[in-house]
């Protein structure tokens, strides 16, 4: 029947598109990532064991966690604050600020590192001031946290802002009319409403912060044992022909990133369903 032929043609196109998408993503992402797992566990748990028993590696993992944690906390606090300011208030320069917030996503990580050095390095704008107080930013923790915070800055904001727009401020107005002060309104009304958006933003920031490489490399000086993060370990060990350790560390980082994505995917309600 012609009807079935028409439906057949339509579903053939659909299958073709589906196939292309799956093959493309498979070849570009799935298979390569699977290969890393394969390399890591080629000798069973040997590679992983060797990596985890290397104190420099474990040090780097701990350092990565600390830096990421710091960056995420900073970005969450300021992210939520800025989101509220951008959505609920009107002030000169609001549009400009809103557009500039996205800047970090388009900046090369090497440029981020360079920029921070130019301001906070020994020869930088604040160099002498910082030198006098003995507070080290570049080649130290603060610099690494700043670099990481820079690159992940927009992530919480991009999740929270749309939700704030969507829910509107009527509930907040109602709370205020009932006598609640700003802190109460925030804690009891606003925060619960944006709760999940904040969670998504935090998880995405965390993934991004754990994985930062270029900016941290420039800013930290990559000093083994004190300012070498996990990503920097991967680079160094691979170049030193200790590939198994490089793969094992990579696997751990990749695992963390994928866990973050899966968590977000699971707790997020299904959006954009098929028609």
């Amino acid at each position, binding site marked *: *029947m*012609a*009807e079935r032929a*028409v*439906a057949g043609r339509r579903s053939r196109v659909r299958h073709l598109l589906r196939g292309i998408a799956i093959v493309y993503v498979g070849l570009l992402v799935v298979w390569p990532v699977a290969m890393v797992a394969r390399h890591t566990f080629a000798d069973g748990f040997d590679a992983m064991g060797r990596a985890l028993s290397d104190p420099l590696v474990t040090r780097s993992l701990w350092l990565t966690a600390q830096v990421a944690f710091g960056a995420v906390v900073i970005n969450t606090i300021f992210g939520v604050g800025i989101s509220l300011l951008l959505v609920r208030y009107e002030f000169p320069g609001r549009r400009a600020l809103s557009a500039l917030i996205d800047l970090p996503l388009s900046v090369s990580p090497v440029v981020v590192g360079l920029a921070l050095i130019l301001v906070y390095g020994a020869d930088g704008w604040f160099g002498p001031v910082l030198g006098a107080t003995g507070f080290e930013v570049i080649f130290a923790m603060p610099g690494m946290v700043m670099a990481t915070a820079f690159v992940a800055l927009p992530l919480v904001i991009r999740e929270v802002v749309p939700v704030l727009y969507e829910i509107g401020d009527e509930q907040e107005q109602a709370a205020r009319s009932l006598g609640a002060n700003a802190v109460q309104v925030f804690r009891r009304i606003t925060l619960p409403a944006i709760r999940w958006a904040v969670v998504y933003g935090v998880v995405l920031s965390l993934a991004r912060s754990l994985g930062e490489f270029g900016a941290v490399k420039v800013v930290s000086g990559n000093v083994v044992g004190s300012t070498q993060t996990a990503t920097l370990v991967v680079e160094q060990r691979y170049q030193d022909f200790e590939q198994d350790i490089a793969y094992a560390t990579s696997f751990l980082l990749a695992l963390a990133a994928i866990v973050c994505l899966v968590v977000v995917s699971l707790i997020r309600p299904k959006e954009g369903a098929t028609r």
Partner: protein
Amino acid sequence: MSIAVRHVTKTFGKFVALDDVSVSIPSGGLTALLGPSGGGKSTLLRVIAGLETADSGQVEIDGVDATDHPARRRNVGFVFQHYAAFKHLSVRRNVSFGLEIRKRPKPEIAQRVDELLALVHLEQFADRLPAQLSGGQRQRMALARALAVEPAVLLLDEPFGALDAKVRKELREWLRRLHDEVHVTTIFVTHDQEEALEIADEIVVVNNGRVEQVGTPDQLYDEPATDFVMRFLGPVTQLGDELVRPHDLELHAADPGGGASGQVERVTRVGFEVRIELSVGEQRVQVTMTRTQAQALEVRTADRWWVRPAPGAPTVRVDGRPPETLVPAGS
């Protein structure tokens, strides 16, 4: 261009939208598919259009079996409730769309579009975007767009449903006049019986996936085939096990034969109409009459009256059996 639907069934999962529906729609008329929401009328329209495929049955357009034809081969014009305007195209480009994809020569397209825009009185909006038009204007544009390709049939799915009451009335009359001018076989879906009664040549009442009755507005109002049709098209009240129109009930002081006795519970006056509520046994019966009649009879609360349908008035048994009059005409 006549339409014939034969034994069409359509289910969505477990829900039966159309159950063995057969209907024949004559050429050149303005037909309404009338029924409650979810009753199947929109589905029927979309099956005729080819936007849905029936599970079984045939659709014939002008004698040709179009059951297997996709929408774009059926040469039907479809107008949606929410306009389905091409948002990125101007009014002019919206209307010319069908002609452009048929690769008609540019001068021909331009002339036809101008004709249509004049027909729907949107000439001065030709270069605006749909977002800049009101709802009523957008719907007129949608109509012009559908008519541009000279369809065999024009199908409208609750075309005025998204508009407010005043615009709805205006456009309803405008559609009737347009049809009188253009004479394309037109089928429109509505749940508003006033709309159907006012402008349709013929009405197909659809309920629960089945055709309840087909007829002219007068036929449907005066000779309803089932209790659903009677209820849907006008006010009803129940006397005994029969449905009758409140304005078809008479009040008699003495037993006229064929009536029932009841006590007046309430008398309400609404404008020129008087509504009398009687309790007849366990039932509440509504009778309406003009002010003059009510004053002449001196109806008051707590009075007892005999009530019966006027001779020849249409009644329907509540269980849906064919119509019969309680009292033969002429008594």
